[in-house]
């Protein structure tokens, strides 16, 4: 127990109280929002304040509406016209995602499931009447961000090597991953195709930017020396943060919807690989041909199949 005391101390430590001189009142620099900066920043409103006003009143709700309608519509049409890809789930299966990767993925996924609908609720708060329900959504948004924040760094590292762009990704883009034809042919992709790679970079790097800008808005009042070197007022930084957060969110929502469509609807049974970690030989052979050829060549197929 004695050994634990310093550890508990870390959590009980409330921060330094700087004393200017003994027996004088503590020097509290207070908020940088309430300081001469506040008056000096009034003219700076023209830089980003007006920009935020323009974007928020003209574009944000409209663009989110377009994304929320257009993306699912395109996929519905794709499903009806071209239809989902079906692969045999009989025969050999290979372990592609070990359990620890699946756990990290699902922590991030749970974060996203909390973040995205609550974020949409905040943007269209008027539709939900505001008040307690949307305030609760705001709290869930923060909780989701913490969950995602736990998973994002491990997720970034665990797939980094396989997510680096490769030459065959250009070919994948040329045929749009083969999703525009019903034909069953070998698609140039290793463990992850170029679409998955795009989603990975947007979700991890974009997600980290979202966490940083979100944290800035959450804490509002922070003091960093960086501001002076950038010649920015704190309020300017908050304005830039909200603009970045909103527009990056559009990209992430569009890709999230794509990810859900691809895994749940577009390729029948592909969701299984994130549940039990195994992918069928048929699916791997066509959709991840480079990866399939590699494990056959290296003779890893038996080893991977045994684990399923």
């Amino acid at each position, binding site marked *: 127990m004695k050994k634990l005391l310093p550890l508990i101390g870390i959590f009980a430590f409330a921060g330094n109280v700087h004393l200017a001189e003994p027996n004088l009142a503590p020097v509290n620099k207070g908020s940088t929002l309430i300081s001469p900066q506040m008056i000096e920043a009034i003219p700076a409103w023209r830089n980003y304040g007006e920009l935020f006003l323009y974007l928020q009143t003209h574009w944000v709700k409209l663009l989110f509406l377009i994304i929320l309608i257009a993306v699912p519509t395109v996929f519905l049409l794709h499903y009806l016209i071209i239809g989902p890809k079906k692969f045999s789930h009989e025969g050999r299966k290979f372990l592609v995602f070990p359990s620890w990767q699946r756990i990290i993925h699902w922590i991030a996924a749970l974060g996203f499931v909390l973040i995205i609908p609550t974020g949409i609720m905040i943007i269209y708060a008027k539709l939900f009447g505001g008040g307690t329900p949307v305030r609760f959504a705001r709290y869930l948004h923060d909780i989701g961000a913490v969950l995602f924040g736990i998973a994002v760094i491990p997720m970034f590292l665990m797939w980094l090597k396989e997510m680096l762009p490769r030459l065959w990704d250009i070919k994948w883009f040329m045929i749009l991953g083969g999703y525009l034809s019903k034909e069953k042919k070998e698609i140039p992709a290793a463990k992850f195709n170029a679409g998955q790679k795009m989603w990975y970079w947007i979700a991890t790097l974009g997600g980290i930017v979202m966490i940083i800008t979100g944290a800035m808005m959450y804490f509002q009042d922070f003091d960093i020396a960086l501001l002076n070197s950038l010649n920015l007022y704190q*309020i300017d930084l908050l304005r830039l943060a*909200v603009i970045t957060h909103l527009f990056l969110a559009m990209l992430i929502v569009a890709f999230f919807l794509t990810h859900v469509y691809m895994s749940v609807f577009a390729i029948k049974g592909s969701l299984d690989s994130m549940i039990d970690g195994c992918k069928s030989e048929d699916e791997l052979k066509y959709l991840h041909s480079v990866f399939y050829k590699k494990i056959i060549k290296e003779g890893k197929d038996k080893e991977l199949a045994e684990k399923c």
Partner: protein
Amino acid sequence: MYEYARMKFYCDEYRCIECNACTVACAEAHELPVGIHRRKVITLNEGIEGKEFSTSIACMHCTDAPCAQVCPVDCFYIREDGIVLHDKDKCIGCGYCLYACPFGAPQFPRDGAFGVRGVMDKCTMCAGGPAPTNSIEEFELYGQNRIAEGKVPMCAAVCSTNALIVGDADSVAEIKRARDAAKGKGPMTPYGWDVAYK
């Protein structure tokens, strides 16, 4: 021609002596939580001879208030006399009004066990809010409704040098013009206004 009055604040930086009476009177009159200052007195160029001045700042009750335009719940409303108020029952505390505000007026008290950001609080020009006038509910959420009682807003009422004046825009402008003329300097624009209101 009949013109509607628009209520405006004006703080004369040539008269403000940084006594903080407006800040304290406001906080006391409306029983504001610790850390919330609806009105703030700020000194610029402190210690620089000839350049130092103080001014008092709060919500400026803008004509086309940016806060009201960006609010995702549309919880703001602008009274016929130009006072910008908001509905704390609708407010979700997202902070957009703060980012849109040129004057940094909106503030967010932190409460609860995790110190989560609460709903927005700002100067009401002592005009209460959407709750029934002079009800306990109105007082607890928005503070006193002195306008309804025919009184001057607290901050201007206590200003010992009459630096802070409030009233309809025309009357305020007239006083300002008279003061500038007395200094023999012609019309002078308050600090930052030439850019903010260009």
